[in-house]
């Protein structure tokens, strides 16, 4: 791999742009392709080959493909998954390192400056805006999960409304079943459609009987990963 292809690949990842690295397994020449079909690298790809590469980026599909008499390896580098946490609470302090361990970029959002401090969240992206404003800037995409952990409707509800209108693949909110029912009523009264409300994971997390903040963090992360990947072994 040429140094400039390596650097371009790292730049794309840092900028959260999905790219494919196409390696001609015969010559070793490599081309970096983005989702718009723009190319950078050693050799330009054939016009007829390019759509196949762009499709592979869209479908997250990696592997060897044959094109005429050439063999090419397409490796797809999607942007990292991202977790947006509403509420700089005790549970968030456990969820941040757990999510990072699983490879997520993490942002903690809380307008209460007393909670969202670097002391409580070292080396963490902290946003001290109201959740709906913060989400308007952060724009949850299909690789973003949002969890609302404040227990307070004035923070959680606007966060849910904004994330349900986005492409976020996971929207979860802390709270017992009774609170969840009341929440659904409130959101419905604010005009959120039922098919959107169905996307809410509440109570948030996989039911593993978690009690401590650290255990609840594991259960939330497990549920998010399940949504992302799906079950590997189907139940009989």
């Amino acid at each position, binding site marked *: *791999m*040429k*140094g400039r292809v*390596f650097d371009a*690949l*790292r730049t794309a*990842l840092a900028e959260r742009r999905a790219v494919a690295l196409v*390696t001609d*397994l015969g010559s*070793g020449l490599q081309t970096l392709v983005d989702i718009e079909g723009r190319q950078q690298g050693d050799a330009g790809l054939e016009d007829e080959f390019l759509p196949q590469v762009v499709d592979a980026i869209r479908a997250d599909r*990696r*592997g*060897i493909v044959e094109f005429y008499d050439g063999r090419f*390896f397409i*490796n*797809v*580098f999607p942007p*990292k998954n991202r977790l947006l946490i509403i509420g700089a609470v005790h549970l968030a302090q456990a969820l941040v*390192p757990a999510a*990072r*361990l699983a*490879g997520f970029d993490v942002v903690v959002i809380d307008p209460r400056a007393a909670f969202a401090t670097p002391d409580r969240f070292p080396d963490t992206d902290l946003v001290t805006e109201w959740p709906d404003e913060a989400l308007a800037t952060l724009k949850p995409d299909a690789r973003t999960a949002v969890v609302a952990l404040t227990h307070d409707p004035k923070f959680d509800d606007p966060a849910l409304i904004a994330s349900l209108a986005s492409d976020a693949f996971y929207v979860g909110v802390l709270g017992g079943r009774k609170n969840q029912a009341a929440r659904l009523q409130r959101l419905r009264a604010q005009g959120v459609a039922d098919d959107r409300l169905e996307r809410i994971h509440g109570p948030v997390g996989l039911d593993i009987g978690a009690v401590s903040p650290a255990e609840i963090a594991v259960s939330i992360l497990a549920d998010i990963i399940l949504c992302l990947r799906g079950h590997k072994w189907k139940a009989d």
Partner: protein
Amino acid sequence: MIRDDNEAILTQAAGWRADGIAVALAHVIATWGSAPRPVGSLMAVSATGAMAGSVSGGCVEGAVALEAAKVLSDGEPRFLSFGISNEMAWEVGLACGGKLEIYVEPIQ
């Protein structure tokens, strides 16, 4: 922190390069059966023998690192395949019965 994602592996590789250490990159390009790491998994190997990432569950990384050293010395990419029934010179394989093919290249 150990992070099992390609971005972290490439960041480690960039760190070695910044220190003037040559790096080879191994890509899992094909798998059959119960291979532990999917196609597209990366492992970076430095000229000093340090590794970042993985291409299997730990079964073949040592052999890949040895081949990576050859790739770094002559600058030529190599294809490696591993499987339970392979008749290769090195005595490593996948106890799980999977097979995999790996492409190792130098970062120039």
